[in-house]
C-alpha cells in the first residue's frame, strides 16, 4: 500500500494539471475554427464541441475505471485465480464494447448530418471565384459571363457578406490547399483536377488562412485573405478593380512607371493599360489597394514594398521573385507609382 498512496495523489495532480491547461488554452483567436463567421464553419464548430464533450467524457470514464481497477487490485493480497471474477469482467467488457459501438455510431450520425448540412448551403446567385494556387501565391479570378467584367487579382478575395460564394480551385504547379478557418474547411487544389467548395461569410471582416498542403520552400508564407464586406462596398471595390490601372499623375509616378516598364518586372507582372503583361507573378494593376504584400507576408506599406523589391529573398527565401538592383531615386519612384495603383 505504501506505493499506492504515493501514486494516487500524483495521478490526481496530473489530471488536475491537464484540466487546468485545457481550460487555459481554449481561447478563441482571430484565425480560428473556434470562431466561425459563416454557416459552414459554424456547423463544423458545433460538431467539434459535441465531439470534444463526448471524447472528454470517454477519456475521463476510462481513466476512472482504470484508477478504480488499480486501487481494487492493490487492495488484494493476491490475484484472483482463474476463473474467479470472469463473469463480472465479461459483463464489464461487453458493456464497455457496447457503449463504444453506441458512441461511435453517434459520432458517425453526427458527421453524416453535418456533411449533409454543409452541402445544403443555398446556392442561388452565387458569386463564382476561381482560386489558382501558385508557388507561393494565390491567383484570384472572378468569373463573369461578360469577358469585360472578369476581375483578376491576387492573394486577397473580396466577397459580399451573406451571399454564397463558390470557390473553384486548381493549380498549375504543385498541390496547394485553400483554407479559411473562420469560414469553412479546406479544399486541395490538385494539378489536373478542378475542385469546388462553397462558403458564405455572415459577418463582415478580414479572414486569414494559409496554404494547408505542403508546397515547397515558401509553404509557410502563402497566405490568403478573404475580405467580407457589405454588397455596396463590394460593388465599389469590384468596379475599381475592373478599371484599368491608374496612369501616372505626377512626375514621380511617371518616372516610377518608366522604371517598371524598363526593368525585368514586366516579365512576370501585369499592369493593365501598360505594356506590362507578364503572368508568372501576381497582377499589380491595383496593388496599392491590397492590405498585404508577398502573399500575406508583410503589411502593404511603402517601406515594406521597397524592402520587398530590393531583396525579396531575405523576406521569403526561395520565392520566384529575383532581387533588383536600382538606385534610391528609381526605387522611391517605383514604390510611389505602385502604391498609387489603388
Amino acid at each position: 500500500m505504501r506505493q499506492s498512496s504515493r501514486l494516487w495523489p500524483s495521478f490526481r495532480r496530473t489530471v488536475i494539471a491537464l484540466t487546468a491547461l485545457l481550460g487555459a488554452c481554449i481561447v478563441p483567436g482571430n484565425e480560428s475554427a473556434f470562431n466561425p463567421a459563416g454557416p459552414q464553419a459554424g456547423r463544423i464548430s458545433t460538431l467539434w464541441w459535441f465531439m470534444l464533450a463526448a471524447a472528454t467524457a470517454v477519456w475521463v470514464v476510462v481513466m476512472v475505471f482504470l484508477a478504480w481497477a488499480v486501487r481494487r487490485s492493490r487492495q488484494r493480497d493476491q490475484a484472483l485465480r482463474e476463473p474467479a471474477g470472469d463473469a463480472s469482467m465479461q459483463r464489464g467488457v461487453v458493456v464497455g464494447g457496447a457503449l463504444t459501438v453506441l458512441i461511435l455510431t453517434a459520432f458517425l450520425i453526427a458527421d453524416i448530418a453535418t456533411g449533409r448540412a454543409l452541402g445544403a448551403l443555398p446556392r442561388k446567385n452565387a458569386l463564382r471565384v476561381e482560386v489558382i494556387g501558385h508557388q507561393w501565391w494565390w491567383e484570384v479570378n472572378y468569373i463573369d459571363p461578360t469577358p469585360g467584367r472578369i476581375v483578376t487579382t491576387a492573394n486577397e478575395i473580396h466577397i459580399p457578406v451573406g451571399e454564397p460564394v463558390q470557390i473553384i480551385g486548381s493549380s498549375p504547379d504543385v498541390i496547394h490547399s485553400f483554407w479559411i478557418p473562420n469560414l469553412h474547411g479546406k479544399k486541395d487544389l490538385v494539378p489536373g483536377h478542378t475542385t469546388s467548395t462553397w462558403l458564405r461569410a455572415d459577418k463582415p471582416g478580414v479572414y486569414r488562412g494559409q496554404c494547408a498542403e505542403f508546397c515547397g520552400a515558401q509553404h509557410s508564407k502563402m497566405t490568403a485573405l478573404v475580405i467580407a464586406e457589405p454588397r455596396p462596398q463590394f460593388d465599389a471595390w469590384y468596379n475599381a478593380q475592373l478599371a484599368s490601372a491608374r496612369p501616372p499623375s505626377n512626375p514621380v509616378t511617371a518616372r516610377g512607371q518608366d522604371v517598371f516598364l524598363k526593368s525585368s518586372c514586366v516579365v512576370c507582372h501585369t499592369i493593365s493599360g501598360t505594356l506590362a503583361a507578364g503572368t508568372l507573378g501576381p497582377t499589380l494593376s491595383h496593388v496599392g489597394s491590397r492590405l498585404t504584400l508577398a502573399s500575406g507576408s508583410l503589411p502593404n506599406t511603402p517601406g515594406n514594398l521597397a524592402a520587398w523589391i530590393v531583396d525579396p529573398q531575405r523576406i521569403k527565401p526561395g520565392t520566384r521573385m529575383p532581387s533588383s538592383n536600382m538606385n534610391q531615386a528609381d526605387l522611391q519612384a517605383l514604390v510611389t507609382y505602385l502604391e498609387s495603383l489603388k
Partner: protein
Amino acid sequence: MTVARGVAPLLPLEVETVRPDPVAPQVWEEVELTDADQELRKELLDTWGDNPGLWGWLRSTSHLSIAKRYIITAFLFFGLGGLEAGLIRLQLSQPENSFIGPDRYNQIFTMHGTTMMFLFAVPVMVALALYLVPMMVGARDVAFPRLNAYGYWVYLIGGLFVYVQFLLNTAPDAGWFSYVPLAGPEFSPGKRVDTWAQLITFTEIAALVAATEIIVTVFKHRAPGMSLNRIPLYVWAMVVTSFMIIFAMPSVATGSQFLAADRLIDTHFFNHAEGGDSLLWQHLFWFFGHPEVYIIFVPGLGIISAIVPAFTRRPVFGYPVMVLALVTTGFMSFGLWVHHMFTTPIPQLGQSFFTAASTMIAIPTGVQIFCWIATIWAGRTRFATPMLFVIGFFVVFIIGGVTGVMVASVAFDQQAHDTYFVVAHLHYVLLGGAVFPLLAGVYYWFPKFTGRMLSERLGKWNFWLLIIGVNVAFFPMHILGLEGMTRRIYTYLPETGWGPLNAVSSAGAVIIVVGMVVFAINFFWSLRRGKTAGENPWGGETLEWATSSPPESYVFMYLPVVKSRAPLWSEGSERVVVGGLRSDVRDTLTTTLMDAEPDHRQSSPAPSIWPLMAAVATGVMFISAVFTPWGLVVGSVLLFFALFFWGWPDKADQAKRLAGESEATA
C-alpha cells in the same frame, strides 16, 4: 510419442521429462546444471556461438546478435529523429525565428518524419520481435537466419545512406509522404527526393524480410504443444503486424518505384499533363501509410499484453477476444487509407465509407483496453517501471484515440486536416501507442537482454518526465491547429497569435529531451552497475523467461514443450523438453501449423559473410540507381554473385552433418 510426419527424421525425436520437483512452484525455478548438462552446454555453445573477432561479428547470423544490433541501431536513429524534432521545436518556439531557413527546415522535418517512421518505429518493433518471438515460441533461432542478417544490413546501409546525404545537404525535403508533383522531377530537381525513394526501398526490403522471418518462425518453429490458441498475445500481435507489412509494403514499393522511374527515366505515372495522376501517388502511399500506423501500434498492443500479466499476476482476460481484436485491427487497417485524402477531389459517397471504417476501427482497440482494465482489476498489481509505462500508455494513447475518431469525420477533418491538430493527434497515438509500450518493453526485457535490471529510481524519473513532457509539448498543438496553424511551416507571423502556445510546446519538448536523457543514463549505468537479474526477475509466464539472462547463443539447452498458454505458471512441477536434437550441428525443430506437433528436424545454416555481401550489393544497386539507371544493372550482377555464394554449401558443415546422420542410422 510419434514424431515422424511427412519427412521422417533420422534420429528419433522424443519428449522427455526431466527433473521432477517435489514442491510445485508457481513460477518455474532456475535449475542447477549437472555435469552432463555442462558438457552439452559446451557443445551447444560451440555449435551456435558466433565466431570470435570482427570477422565472426560480420558473419554472425544469430537472431540474438542481429536483433540486438537492430534494436540499438533503431534507438540511435530514434535519437537522431529526436534531435531533429528538437531543432523543429527550437525554430517554432517564437514567431519569425531566423534560427533555421526554409530550405534546411524542410529537410529537417522530412528527415524527422522519415527517420521516425521508416528508420525507428517499424525497425525497432520488428527488431524487438526478432529477439523475442523465437524465444517466446521456444525456438533457438528464426526460420531463416541468413536472410535475417541480410535484412538488418540492408536497413543499416539504407539508414546510413540517407544520413550521409543529410550531412551533404542533399537530404529529402518533400515531406515523409513525398507528394507529387512537388516530389516529381519538375519541382524537386536534384537528388534529394531520389534519396528518399531509395531509402524507402531499403526499408521495405528490411521490413518484408523481418515479416517473413516472424511469420515462418511462428508458424513452423513453435515449441511442441504450443497450438495456435496457446501462442502468447505478443506473438499474435507480431504475426498480425507481419501480415500487415506483407500486404502494405508492396503498395509503397510500387509507388516509390514509379516515383523513382518518373524522376530517373522520364516515365509519367504521376504527370497529369501526360495522362498520369498525382492522386494515384496518394492512394498508393496511404494504402501503405495507414496500415503503417497500425504496423507501429499493434506491436505496442502486444507489448502491453505481455507486460500486464507479469505485473498483475494473472493472464490477460479474454484471450480469444484479444486475438480476434488484433486480427480485426489488421484487416480493418487496410480500409481506412482514404481518410488521409478527405480534402482531395474524391466522391463524397466513398468518403462516408472510409469515415465509417475509420470510426469502427476504434472498437477492437477499445475492447482490448477494457480487457486489460479487467485484468488489472482482477489481479494484484505491482508498480514497477514497466507497469508505470503501461499506465502511461492508457493515459496518452486514449487521448490520441479519441482525436483519431474526430478526424475520421469528413466534416471536421476539413478543418483539422494538415494542421497542428493532426500533428498533436498522431504524436499522441504514436508516443502513447508505440513509444510508451516500447519503453515499457525495454524496462521489462532489459534484464533478459543484458542480465541486469534497469534502475527503478531513474525509471520513475524517466516516466514522469516523459508523460509530463509529452502532454505539455503536444496538447497545445490541438488548439494551435484549430486556430489555423498549418503543418510543415518553418515560421509564422506574430499577428497569428500562435507564439505563446508554441513556446509552451517547445518547453514540453525540452522536458521530453530531459526524460530521454535520463533513459539513456539509466541504460548505460545499468548496463554495468544494474542489479543482477535471474532467469525470470518479474515472474513472467512466457518461455523467454525460461532461459538464462542474457540467453546463451543456443537459447534453450533443451527445447521446451508447452501444455498451456502460460507455461511458466502451469500447475505441476515438471519441465517437459524435447530430446533427440543434435548438438554438434545447428539442428532445429519444425512443428505443424495448427497444433504444433513435431514435424521434422531442420538444419539451420552456419554463419556466413554472404548476407552482408548481398546487402552491400543491394546497397550498390539502389544507391547508384539514384545517379544512373545503369546502377541497377551493375547492382543486379553483383547481387547475383552474392546470392550464388550465399547458397553455396559449406563443406565442413555438410561433412559433419552427414557423418553424424550415418552414425545415427548405423
